[in-house]
């Protein structure tokens, strides 16, 4: 459709959709963006990659008017544009799909689309117009959503479509998506990419922020890499590789594959028998789940967030109660009732790295030496005279752990919230792994963790396995499950949908299982 691509002279004549020059932004002492310049051609899909805290989201939030830049200028379609708030951005034809959706849960799809784009003081005419327009957009871009459904009743995949529809309804020509696939199944992600390619064909410009390099390679035309607030390189996607991008993100060569030997699987350590959990609302979160965990293996639990994995971890780790079923360790039943005690679990050699390290893994305003002892603070080694805590030993112990796990800065007096996501996770890991447990339960080990630290954390998990420990790994990142696991269980809607060996399966099959489809049942 574009005959201009071969004509260099005419191509130059088309102004880029986005032109950022010299953008800087500081939050207090933290320089989130340093003198960033970036150009995105009209009708292109442009990726921005970078580790957590590299400043990707800040940059895009500036473009969307959510934050004000300290310095720099923005041109949209070659026209200098002042963007002071989101209202200006919308007027300039920019739409944004935020990482955490900006939707009102108890509103209908229609109401969410209309919010902020109403015409006139009464709602009737706007709602009627939006209903018609949604139908047209649905047909044009494969964006089917029931306009009268409540947001809280539809899946995250559909919620994301509503966000895209919101932008299109406001006639956005530029669409920014912040980590759009974080909450999607592989199938939903594929659908999203089809939609994006479709939008591109209609001449829309798309900017996609992600830390998943494979997506960048799949879907973008060009890509910019950010590191510590600076834009380190911008390149055509076809001329680069995931390894090069990773190096540009981290500043050194990183191993994207996990280096591990074949597992030496030993005897069964834990047996879960018919575990079920019904929550306070009477919803069954876990339905009759049974499996075994053996020495020397990493058992990966795959699944989209919210399909019972969290409840499973809670029951086994003693945080939550099972409605029915039992857990055996070395053939001996352990308490899974509401009287279960997480401290006793630890004494029996079950360590737990929780999914949500801010809520459950760490006490954010407490110092590192306190955090590295929590959960084990009643152990004799931390006890001093007259029943008081032995602070001296706790600090020394923390210092050693920080050194061994390369936690930076290595100062035990710093509070947990001071550290980056990767270092926070290492603090939790150091505490749990250094206890030399028989079983390690680990949830979302690398959520919000930068690539450099991911490599380290994965290696620690593999080392523990090679030391003959049993590891139960729960992750929503399918790549991670495939890279680490010796055996994979896929959960969907509270049941184990299937069990696979990583060497005999592929992403497509696992994706189907995650969506509740059993590929074998159909064949």
């Amino acid at each position, binding site marked *: 459709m574009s005959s201009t691509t071969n004509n260099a002279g005419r191509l130059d004549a088309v102004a880029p959709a986005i032109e950022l020059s010299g953008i800087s932004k500081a939050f207090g002492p933290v320089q989130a963006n340093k003198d960033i310049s970036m150009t995105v051609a009209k009708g292109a899909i442009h990726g921005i990659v970078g580790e957590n805290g590299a400043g990707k989201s800040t940059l895009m939030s500036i473009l*969307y008017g959510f934050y004000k830049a300290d310095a720099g200028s923005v041109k949209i379609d070659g026209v200098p544009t002042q963007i002071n708030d989101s209202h200006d951005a919308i007027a300039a034809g920019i739409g944004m799909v*935020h990482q955490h959706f*900006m939707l*009102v849960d108890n509103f209908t799809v229609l109401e969410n689309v209309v*919010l*902020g784009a109403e015409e006139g003081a009464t709602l009737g005419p*706007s709602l009627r117009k939006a209903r018609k327009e949604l139908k047209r957009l649905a047909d044009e871009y494969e964006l089917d959503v029931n306009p009268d459904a409540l947001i809280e009743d539809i899946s995250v995949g559909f919620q994301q479509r509503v966000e895209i529809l919101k932008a299109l309804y406001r006639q956005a020509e530029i669409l920014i998506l912040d980590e759009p696939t974080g909450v999607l199944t592989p199938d939903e992600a594929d659908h999203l990419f089809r939609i994006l390619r479709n939008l591109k064909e209609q001449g829309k410009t798309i900017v996609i922020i992600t830390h998943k390099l494979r997506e960048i390679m799949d879907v973008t035309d060009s890509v910019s890499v950010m590191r510590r607030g600076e834009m380190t390189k911008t390149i055509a996607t076809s001329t680069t590789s995931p390894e090069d991008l990773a190096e540009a993100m981290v500043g050194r060569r990183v191993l994207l594959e996990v280096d591990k030997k074949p597992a030496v699987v030993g005897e069964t350590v834990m047996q879960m028998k018919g575990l079920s959990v019904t929550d306070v609302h009477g919803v069954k979160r876990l339905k009759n789940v049974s499996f075994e965990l053996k020495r020397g293996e990493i058992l990966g639990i795959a699944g989209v967030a919210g399909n019972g994995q969290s409840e499973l971890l809670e029951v086994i780790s003693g945080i939550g109660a099972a409605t029915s079923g039992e857990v055996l360790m070395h053939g001996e039943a352990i308490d899974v009732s509401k009287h279960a005690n997480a401290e006793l679990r630890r004494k029996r050699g079950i360590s737990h790295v929780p999914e949500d390290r801010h809520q459950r893994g760490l006490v954010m305003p407490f110092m590192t030496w306190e955090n590295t002892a929590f959960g084990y603070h009643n152990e004799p080694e931390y006890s001093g005279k007259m029943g008081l805590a032995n602070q001296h030993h706790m600090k020394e112990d923390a210092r050693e752990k920080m050194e061994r796990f390369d936690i930076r800065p290595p100062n035990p007096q710093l509070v947990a919230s001071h550290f980056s996501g990767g270092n926070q996770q290492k603090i939790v890991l150091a505490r749990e792994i250094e206890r030399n447990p028989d079983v390690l339960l680990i949830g979302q080990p690398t959520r919000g963790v930068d690539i450099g630290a991911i490599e380290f954390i994965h290696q620690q998990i593999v080392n523990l396995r090679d030391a003959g420990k049993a590891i139960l790994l729960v992750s929503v990142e399918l790549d991670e499950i495939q890279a680490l696991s010796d055996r994979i269980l896929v959960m969907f809607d509270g049941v184990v949908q299937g069990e696979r060996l990583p060497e005999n399966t592929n992403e497509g099959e696992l994706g189907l299982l995650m969506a509740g489809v059993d590929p074998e049942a159909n064949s």
Partner: protein
Amino acid sequence: MMDFLTNDLLLLSDSAVRNAIPLLLACLAGLYSERAGIFDIGLEGKMLVAAFAAGAFSAIAGMPAYDGGWEMGAWSVWIGLGAAIIASTIFSMIHAFASITLRGNQLISGVAINFFAAGITVLIGQHWFRMGGQTPQLREGQRFEPISLPFAESLKDVPIVGDIYYQLISGHNIIVYFGFIIVALTWWVLYRTRFGLRMRAVGENPGAVDTAGISVVKLRYSALIITGILCGLAGAYLSLGTAAAGFGKDMTAGRGFIALAALIFAKWKPISAMGATLLFGMLEAIGNKYQTLDLGFVVLPGQFMQALPYILTVVILAGFVGKAIPPKAGGEPYVKER
């Protein structure tokens, strides 16, 4: 039986309506505030300053010049009403400034407003009138008089329909009728207008409103201005529209909190708010009419009857009446996340 219907039930209902009106107005005031995501336990305080301002200014406006009055005659009551709305709105703006602009704790701000109102009304009242915190007895022209609706006198003798019209519907003052109009108006604003959609959204997810290019701050201030006005009406009704005819120390007597309980009971919906406050009004009416109630096997003492509305409040706030889910962003100051 006929006698019971015409006398007791009608009189009870009539008095229930009168009792319900200040609760209803305060409840709707709270509805605007809380639907916009600002918890408001300062309804009581705002009603109290409004009642005081209404009583004081209506009295002063109606006094003869040699007493320092303004000789406004029949306009006095409206001066009182205006003063009530202004006073209550100022208090509402203090709450807005503390909880929206300064992002303070909304409960603490509300408690502070209640204490401040309780003290300042008596202080100024004593300074102005030297009557121990009371305001002078209001006379004709200084208070709202019952309005006789058309044909009320001639329909009076028609059985049932005439009785209901004469006893229950006709013969209230203007704020009563206004209160019911505001219920319908609130429903329409909330569900059928752009402002209502945005206000409901800002109470659930201010981020969605902000990213849609709408100012969260302006929207919340607007809602709290409406809260101020409605609390002003509620307070003015107490001193200008009831038999009290004047302000008395602590005259709100916990009505702000009962209104809050009614708001939770009504699950933050305007039509239900009317139902809930009428229920409270009826309980108060029963308590007043039957000093003691003989149920045959036990005689309920007067104190118990008087306490009925408060008992229901406790029951509701303790969550015995179903699960009430407040607006999700309520109580949380809005800060753009990093």
